[in-house]
């Protein structure tokens, strides 16, 4: 009988708090979004599962000695996991379209206004009672506008670990929502004629250029923005392994097994930060709201910049491609292509949008470096 009581006391039913129960529902919601809605499933499935595990009373997943404790401590606190993901993303990225049309770099720059405007917004939110974001918190929230998961996780882990869970969830959710968030903004800021503009075919890019490009990026970064070198450096390493052509087995592993293994653990570790104390607060609502604003402003500023560039360009530029500057690779480029096709069935913008799209990845890594330098 004693044994039965001991067993009963070890169950979670007695120990459950409301917060934990709600956080499990949040985890279940993330699983639903990942599996049924196909919202960035590679990350949201492990994040959702991690959130459920982390909130089981008595199981101790996040206590010292628990699995999620180790994974978080080894992989996120050190920054190693997001950096490895970034290396893998670098190995998957083809800079060909950007090299063929370098001016699209500026679209990737413009779209980062989403980040910095949100920084302002987060601080402005402090005027509402209940919000008290520090500058570090605000910076970590603002990076959601970079539409780049590993960058957001890396920056949040350095500047505002308590908000990491909410920030990562917001970042991946909005990246999945890009096909819903972006088109209305794109249509609002362009005429149908502008959306129908066809662009010239891209020139082929030589192997040498592709090899030298990541090195040039690294060189400029280390000269002018050393705080961005962890992110940019690992990204460039991955890209160099891809383009060098002599270490294909390393590049393949970085793109597949290594990134897959790290993704599982990264997701679980991020999920482990979804605890009720930190997530079930007004702040999270604020973060979700600011994230949506960040995506919107980034999209708008990209499109507007493209319109400006089109004015000064001899070759035709379709302003839609500016929207891809937020990154969210390759989803945003696909959205551009789709919206372009709606306006003109002959208008294939995918490759043209890939330029600003990958430029946006660099742009937000650069922005993260700036925030680390100024706030960190």
């Amino acid at each position, binding site marked *: 009988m004693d044994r039965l009581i001991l067993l009963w006391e070890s169950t979670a039913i007695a120990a459950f708090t409301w917060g934990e129960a709600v956080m499990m529902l949040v985890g279940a919601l993330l699983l639903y979004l990942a599996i049924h809605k196909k919202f960035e499933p590679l990350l949201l499935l492990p994040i959702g599962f991690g959130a459920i595990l982390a909130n089981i009373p008595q199981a101790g997943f996040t206590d010292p000695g628990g699995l999620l404790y180790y994974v978080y401590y080894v992989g996120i606190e050190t920054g190693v996991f997001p950096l490895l993901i970034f290396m893998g993303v670098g190995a998957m990225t083809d800079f*060909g379209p950007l090299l063929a049309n*370098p001016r699209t770099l500026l679209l990737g*720059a413009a779209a980062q206004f989403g980040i910095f405007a949100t920084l302002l917004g987060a601080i402005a939110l402090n005027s509402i009672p209940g919000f008290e974001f520090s500058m570090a918190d605000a910076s970590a929230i603002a990076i959601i506008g970079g539409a780049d998961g590993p960058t957001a996780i890396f920056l949040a882990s350095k500047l505002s670990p308590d908000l990491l869970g909410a920030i990562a969830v917001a970042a991946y959710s909005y990246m999945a929502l890009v096909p819903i968030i972006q088109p209305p903004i794109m249509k609002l800021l362009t005429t149908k004629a502008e959306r129908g503009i066809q662009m010239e075919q891209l020139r082929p890019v*030589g192997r040498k250029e592709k090899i030298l*490009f990541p090195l040039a990026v690294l060189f400029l970064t280390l000269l002018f923005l050393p705080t961005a070198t962890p992110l940019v450096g690992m990204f460039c390493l991955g890209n160099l392994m891809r383009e060098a052509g002599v270490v294909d087995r390393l590049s393949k592993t970085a793109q597949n097994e290594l990134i897959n293994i790290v993704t599982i653990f990264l997701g679980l570790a991020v999920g482990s930060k979804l605890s009720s104390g930190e997530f079930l607060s007004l702040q999270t609502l604020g973060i979700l709201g600011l994230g949506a604003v960040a995506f919107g402003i980034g999209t708008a500023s990209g499109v507007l910049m493209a319109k400006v560039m089109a004015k000064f360009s001899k070759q035709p530029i379709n302003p839609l491609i500016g929207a891809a500057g937020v990154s969210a690779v390759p989803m945003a480029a696909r959205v551009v292509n789709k919206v372009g096709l709606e306006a003109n069935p002959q208008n294939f913008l995918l490759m043209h949008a890939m330029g600003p799209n990958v430029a946006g990845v660099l742009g937000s890594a650069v922005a993260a470096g700036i925030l680390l330098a*100024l706030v960190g």
Partner: protein
Amino acid sequence: MTDLFSEAFTIMVTGMVTVFVFLSLLLGAMALLRLIADAPEPAVGGSSSAQEPTPAQLAAITAAIHQYRRK
């Protein structure tokens, strides 16, 4: 709070300027790059890493053909 806000505003301006300056420098570097790497080899926009099958793939291929022939 107003202090924090004006600080955020400064960061916003500084940040956007830096992003643009940085990526403009990269733009310049890319022009340079193109000059250096001027003789563009036949390789095109696509990935350069999908060329040769790995040993594992070759093994799979060999086995595939082998099994295919046996049938």
